[in-house]
């Protein structure tokens, strides 16, 4: 008899991994299109390089490790696409390739593959690239169409020079920033699609954004600019919602997203980096199992007080 073991949760659903991942890819497309619209050929090269190398790395790793090759589940495409959209448009292509390989092999593969990684692979890869090659990961160009990266007019992001962009510019993404995170309209389109197809629930994106809004207001910042600048919205929709690394319980997801919002504001205000989204969500990924443990309801007849009668 061939008994199979698969990671929890063991829930039957009509939605396969492949179908869910396909939904996420479709939801990411508006962001990709907006990124290429604003940042041109450089952005397109990076998105393609990171996606292709993520799939290639997954295929090679699974072959080398003697596992079944599961690139058909499209999870590598999602990881590569998200990483590509998280890069500054002027980054060199090899940065995307290295980041994708790191995400797929080190963060996901070495820990056992999809479902066993304890942090989001794309985010961990972005953090790796940020601390390894800060020169490229903090260089921004102005959104100037197809030749934006060729002309490479360097520019400060809204986080580095607050107040220099209107809320409308921030919303449409006509500002310097990572490829996929600048156009909030495209992100909201993606979110609408994910909600309509029930790929993600509203809890994490809404709570995280609301939390970042509230805490930046409490700490004396401009709350509207805070959630429209940097990667808050993109991360709230596409990265904090990663099934593998967020808490499973509904209450846990609320706590997780609220804490992530608080951490983002704290790192932006007091940290060394102008943007804190990557590190905030990575930290909350690590805390996710703990949160699930804390909010779990006590099973009747077990736990504290259960043995009061039989000593």
């Amino acid at each position: 008899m061939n008994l199979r073991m698969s990671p929890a949760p063991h829930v039957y659903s009509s939605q396969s991994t492949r179908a869910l991942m396909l939904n996420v890819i479709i939801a990411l497309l508006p962001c990709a299109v907006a990124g290429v619209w604003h940042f041109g050929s450089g952005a397109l090269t990076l998105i393609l390089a990171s996606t292709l190398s993520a799939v290639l790395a997954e295929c090679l790793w699974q072959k080398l490790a003697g596992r079944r090759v599961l690139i058909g589940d499209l999870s590598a495409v999602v990881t590569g696409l998200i990483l590509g959209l998280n890069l500054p448009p002027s980054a060199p292509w090899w940065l995307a390739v290295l980041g994708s390989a790191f995400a797929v092999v080190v963060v996901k593969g070495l820990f056992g593959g999809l479902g066993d990684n304890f942090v989001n692979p794309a985010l961990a890869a972005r953090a790796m690239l940020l601390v390894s090659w800060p020169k490229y990961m903090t260089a921004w160009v102005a959104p100037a169409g197809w030749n934006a990266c060729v002309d490479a007019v360097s520019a400060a992001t809204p986080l580095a020079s607050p107040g220099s962009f209107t809320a409308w510019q921030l919303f449409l993404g006509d500002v310097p920033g990572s490829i996929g995170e600048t156009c909030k309209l495209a992100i909201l389109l993606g979110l609408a699609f994910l909600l309509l197809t029930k790929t993600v629930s509203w809890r994490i994106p809404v709570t995280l954004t609301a939390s970042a809004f509230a805490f930046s207001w409490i700490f004396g910042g401009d709350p509207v600019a805070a959630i429209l600048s940097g990667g808050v919205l993109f991360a709230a929709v596409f990265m904090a919602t990663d099934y593998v690394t967020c808490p499973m319980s509904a209450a846990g997801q609320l706590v997780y997203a609220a804490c992530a919002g608080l951490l983002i504001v704290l790192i932006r205000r007091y940290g060394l980096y102008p943007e804190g989204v990557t590190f905030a969500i990575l930290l909350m990924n690590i805390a996710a199992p703990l949160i699930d443990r804390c909010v779990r309801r006590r099973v009747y007849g077990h736990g504290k007080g259960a043995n009061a009668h039989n000593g």
Partner: protein
Amino acid sequence: MRTMDDRKHAPGEALKYGVLGGNPLLRLGLGLCPALAVTVTAMNGLGMGLATACVLLCTSLTVSTLRGLVAGRARVPLFLLVSAVFAAVAQMILAGWFPALNGALGVFVPLIAVNCLILNRADEAASRSGLMTAAADAVGMGLGYTAALTLVGALRELIGRGSVFGAAILPSGYEPMLLAAMPAGGFLMVGLLMGVFRAVASGRSGKKESERT
């Protein structure tokens, strides 16, 4: 608790065990703190490894000599006292003759006194065996630790600076990966090497995993 079986009492076997099968850093996970903190370059790794190996050898010999006199709960403070004495000597030697290396290793030289590798070998090997066996075990473990630290240091120096032992290896166009020079890079490197050692030691890399799916 792990005890040494008889075949490891032969000096040759003890050496092989210390470097490969029972490598203190990459198989037993002992002495991780200095391994992560100072192995930014191959030279640092080599220096730290050799200093630890010398303190380990002296401590093991002393503990083995004194093994009839100490027993029970008083033994661990005694082991620490002995290793602290030799660590102090090691620091004076380093400060006197290798001031640059001493400066690079910093606080981790006096901390050799509380390296768990030394405590572990004193408790598990030296306090239960004769001088020869204790010496063979200490030399094997010391060489294994030195080799592992040098390997970690060389790889981190290569990736983080493009050089090994200060000599440029990679072309000048190489963009160093700064993460490798940070403590986080040390964790990653030690973890990856542990995986490689485990795969090689069990000699069946990947087979177990393919059975799972």
